[in-house]
């Protein structure tokens, strides 16, 4: 059913989304923790920055990333070579683009938890780090799961950013959404239907399973 080009694109897309999700959980969880505790103007600014990709058109983000990843941008200055048109460039772009979809649910979970569980853990002589891993993270697991699923799905579905910084190189930067666009443009509607229909089913399954899992997890404790 799928030809070699399609399989390559699907594998690349899943690899990109998987890696992005792992990085987002590693980066996003501490960030969400910090944002969930205490209020200051600085936190409001950071929280706004995190949420910006929700409202910014992907072309705006893609345009700035293209400039930033180009030979005269900061990435090239740090890494010694430009990041545009590379798989890692897409990873960086996807992390920025999907950040709010991971950070916000985790932050909400931490906030919903309240200070009480951590205080109780402290009276039981748990170190803050210990309490974070044994108390806070398990309590926030529905938020972590929602964040992971949303981050993964959102990265699979991204188009504008990868279009602008990717360059459509098969096996390196040509992801599903770009491939679908190509099929539609070349009037190869059979293949477009196959991939687009697959995405539709995938997205439906993601949101449905998220709803079910979230209800189970929260229901168990309620």
């Amino acid at each position, binding site marked *: 059913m799928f030809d070699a080009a399609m399989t390559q694109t699907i594998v690349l897309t899943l690899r990109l989304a998987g890696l992005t999700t792992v990085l987002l959980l590693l980066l996003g969880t501490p960030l969400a923790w910090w944002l969930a505790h205490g209020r200051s103007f600085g936190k409001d600014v950071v929280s706004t920055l995190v949420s910006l990709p929700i409202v910014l058109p992907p072309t705006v983000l893609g345009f700035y990333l293209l*400039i930033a990843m180009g030979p005269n941008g900061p990435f090239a200055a740090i890494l010694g070579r*430009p990041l545009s048109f590379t798989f890692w460039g897409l990873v960086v772009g996807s992390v920025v683009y999907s950040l709010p979809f991971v950070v916000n649910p985790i932050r909400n979970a931490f906030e919903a938890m309240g200070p009480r569980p951590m205080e109780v853990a402290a009276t039981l002589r748990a170190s803050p780090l210990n309490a974070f891993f044994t108390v806070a993270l398990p309590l926030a697991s529905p938020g972590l799961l929602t964040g992971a699923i949303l981050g993964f799905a959102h990265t699979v579905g991204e188009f504008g950013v990868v279009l602008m910084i990717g*360059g*459509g*190189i098969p096996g390196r930067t040509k992801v599903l959404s770009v491939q679908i*666009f*190509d099929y539609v*443009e070349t009037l190869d509607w059979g293949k477009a239907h196959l991939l687009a229909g697959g995405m539709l089913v995938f997205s439906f399954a993601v949101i449905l399973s998220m709803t079910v899992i979230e209800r189970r997890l929260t229901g168990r404790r309620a």
Partner: protein
Amino acid sequence: MIRFAPTVRSAVILATIAFGSNAMAGETTVAVAANFTAAAQEIGTAFQNATDHSVTFTFGSTGQLYTQITQAAPFDVFLAADQVRPELAETDGFAVPGSRFTYAEGQLVLWSADPAAIDGTAKVLESPALTHVAIANPATAPYGAAAVEVLQALNLYDALLPKLVEGKSISQTHQFVATGNAQVGFVALSQVIKDDSGSDWLVPAAMYKPIRQDAVLLKMAEGNEAAAAFIDFLQGPEARAIIESYGYRVGE
């Protein structure tokens, strides 16, 4: 009911102001291939000065525009970057039969934003320092297909394959090069002819099949005077002079 009368009256007045300024003036929407953007805008201004009609342009890649046309996009005229899609529009019944003609012949240029990168020959393509060469998607953009032909003629296609990056349209390809993300790229001469900042190599026309760009009147335009006038204007001397000034060849 009487209460509504003033509202209706003001609506009529508003409508008259909005649509009725001149009974003869019409409106037309033209779908234009990305490479022809700048030329089309200049032709549009000249057209609106010469006639009472107004024209609105929609820019995109030829493939994308054609897909929209097959889904009843409200376009009256289609200025493609190739001959394939306008022909297809005719055979598939989206265009007025017999209305197709070549309005421009495109020229391919290897271009860099760096004034020192290209010395007027293809030599830069053999440089090991080159990391990316931008071309338009060969499957959808004729300038991309022509670029592949040129690379093959130079026996460099296989060697450069890992360095090729694809723009979705010739505009995106130009953007890749203009931002320096790709050091060089094959773009349309029309995109860089009014730009003295970079360096280039005008590819000899013999190295690739002519990039004939066809226009066609779409079924949507039937009975639209402004659309017919635009087609006429496009073939007239004024428009042809503009087209040539953007680095296209015009036939005959």
